[in-house]
């Protein structure tokens, strides 16, 4: 092909690509979808690096998705005047990251550790895999990956279609609902509206989710299914070893001048009932506090925290997260000094 023809081909390709991408972006925006950030290892690493800023005054929020939804970071920072860094991971045990912080001599801050019993008191490999992957990325991040992240952030902040979880090619192809073989375990089909991630990793339910009960019911169904699939809780020696490990990490952080506070955020309806039955407070939460010698704020112990209703039984709405965080900070300031 003569070079002029190839130039024409290139120009045509650029025009078609530009028009197609603009059309797709406008279509998504017209459906009320807003840009957010991919909550992957890159963003997590960016936050992990901030735990030293400043090293003795930062508060690190560890936990699973409840910590990410329920503690409103802007409210926490406004009411305490301290920097809050959120390192929670969905569907994961926070113990791996807690271990990492405890063994990091440079970290001297405070840890607020969200305890979701089924994740915290468990050793199932899949609950430990994402923390391990994120930590590996953090420890091995290359200069090229740092630059790529810097260039990627403004694009993700402004373009809706750059949502890997829902609008990547693979995710779109997976929308074709074909009958699977009997016994196949599908991925948990969370709706797009359930989650929007800010740059500080704050998770929020969208306005659409809060008014659409069918979406809420879909997520409620997922939680009930997850609760039904989990193996029995750890007990005996395994539980004792688990607590011992947490205690050792608490001691390490305290030795450097830091502190650890455990929190149990609200859950509602049948999810709360199952959790209370499978993980009785006296056998798990109380023992955790007794063994570690840490202070803990369980939502059922405080009237101001116990009246929240989670739209899908497990996480707070953005508005409730702000109220919950204000109450939490008040309790931290008064009760826990």
């Amino acid at each position, binding site marked *: 092909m003569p070079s002029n023809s*190839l130039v024409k081909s290139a120009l045509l390709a650029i025009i*078609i690509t530009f028009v197609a*991408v603009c059309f797709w972006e406008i279509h998504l925006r017209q459906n009320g979808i807003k840009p957010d950030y991919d909550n992957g290892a890159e963003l997590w690493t960016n936050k992990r690096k901030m735990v030293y800023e400043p090293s003795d005054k930062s508060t690190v929020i560890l936990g699973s998705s409840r910590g990410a939804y329920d503690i409103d970071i802007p409210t926490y920072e406004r009411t305490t005047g301290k920097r809050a860094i959120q390192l929670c991971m969905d569907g994961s045990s926070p113990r791996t990251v807690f271990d990492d912080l405890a063994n990091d001599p440079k970290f001297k801050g405070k840890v607020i550790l969200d305890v979701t019993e089924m994740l915290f008191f468990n050793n199932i490999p899949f609950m430990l895999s994402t923390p391990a992957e994120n930590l590996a990325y953090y420890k091995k991040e290359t200069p090229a990956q740092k630059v790529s992240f810097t260039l990627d952030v403004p694009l993700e902040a402004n373009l809706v279609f750059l949502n890997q979880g829902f609008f990547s090619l693979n995710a779109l192809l997976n929308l074709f609902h074909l009958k699977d073989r009997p016994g196949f375990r599908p991925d948990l089909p969370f709706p797009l509206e359930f989650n929007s991630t800010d740059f500080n990793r704050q998770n929020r339910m969208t306005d659409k989710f809060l008014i659409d009960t069918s979406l809420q019911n879909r997520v409620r169904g997922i939680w009930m299914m997850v609760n039904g699939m989990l193996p029995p809780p750890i007990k005996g020696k395994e539980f004792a070893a688990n607590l011992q490990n947490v205690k050792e990490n608490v001691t390490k952080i305290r030795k450097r001048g830091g502190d650890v506070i455990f929190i149990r955020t609200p859950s509602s309806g049948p999810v709360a009932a199952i959790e209370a039955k499978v993980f009785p407070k006296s056998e798990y939460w109380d023992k955790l506090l007794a063994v570690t010698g840490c202070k803990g704020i369980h939502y059922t112990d405080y009237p101001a925290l116990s009246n929240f209703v989670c739209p899908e039984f497990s996480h707070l709405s953005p508005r409730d997260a702000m109220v919950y965080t204000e109450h939490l900070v008040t309790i931290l300031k008064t009760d826990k000094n």
Partner: protein
Amino acid sequence: MVFNSFTFIAFFIIILILHNLPFSWKVKKINLLIASYIFYAAWNPPFILLLWLSTVVDYFVGRALYTQPNKHKRRVLLVASLIGNLGMLCFFKYGTFLLDNFVGLTNLLGFDYHPATPNIILPAGISFYTFTTLCYTIDMYKRRGEPVKSLLDFSLFVTFFPHLVAGPIVRPHQLVPQFESPRKASRQQFFDGLFLLTLGLFMKSVLADGILSAAADPVFGSQAGLSPLDAWTGVLAFSGQIFFDFAGYSTSAIGVALCLGFILPQNFLYPYAAIGFSDFWRRWHITLSAWLRDYLYIPLGGNREGKLKTYINMMITMLIGGLWHGANWTFVAWGGLHGLYLWIEKAITDRRTKKLAFLADVKSTPVNPTAPIAQSLLSVNPKFGLPKAMLTYLLICITWVFFRSGTFQGAWLLLLGMTGQIHTAQPLLATISIIKVGVIIVAMLAFHWLMRNTTVLQVVSKLPWFTVGIVWSLMLILLLLSQESGKSFIYFQF
């Protein structure tokens, strides 16, 4: 730095601008060299010292090898270079593996020896640039070609960023002359290069990372036995993933170099259209196959020392080729299986050659496993070409089981699954995943078969401009939609 990243896009734009500014050729070469070091240092800056060491040592040793008249001294120099290059490779790549095997052996003999596990990080691309510098010193020892005139040209030959970390493995005569006179891409070369870069990224990001890895990873990561459908889907997906990943890198590398006006050798020629295994190795990772042929198989004696020695040399070459890919016995098994295939193929072709020679009353010639025998002998009956290619592909898929599995237990479990020996397997892959793999693999095989005697650029040159434009835009749109930037290429670990 990987080609499929925002960092590379920014880096490449700067390089293109610098390369097209009115600087002297020497300044442009210095720019390219600095850029290549930045490209490499973007992974792990300290490892650049190894690259410098390897470059400087081999430049001076290469010159000395060429000019030194004393045979004994030349041998000493060659051995020093081999020890230096291979020693570095052995330490970084095979250090832990050798120690593990030594510990295993001592424990087997009854010694209670448990040393601390060394934490050795593998420098990216060490296998590739070691082979690049090795071939130079060996060529200088054999006085094939002249020494590179300047350290700048030699450094650029070793370090030129498109080929540095995952090939193609270039020979001095392929690249060094291109550095001797000013080069700038013609308009044709520039747009050909951009097209190849897009195609390479499409292969890597859309097909390998976006779709096929989603099926291959869970299958090879499964600790439980699998049904034949899941097991075969995973293995076929990996056959596509490894091809699109590696050929995608090579295509991108050739495209990037072409945009700057340099020509790198082809590394893949539709390998899944191969008829037979020697044909496969002429189409898969061509520059490595040629390197192993010229610097290992032929020095071992090749096919010049009788049948038995030929078979042994073939197997040694394939076993070392396997080990080159990774410090694990599963890679050796992968190479061994290919060696076995080549043995069987050679036995069959030798027999046919004899028969044909007898029938035609002509003398049969010795067969070189890397020479074009398969095409001439196996395609005696061309109508069976496609079934033979399919059989070759399926047998190669079995070798990928060893290549991708981390352990022999894992490989064995997967082979049991593929042969239907697991009766209690739970379904692992979604129907949509199986369909995606099926569509891509069938399309890949069809493309390989249809394109087996041509190249992408030849086909592009014959198509109307708007067809090329539409295909190009489809690749770009799918690339943007795939959102798979930044993932490392599989061959970086080798």
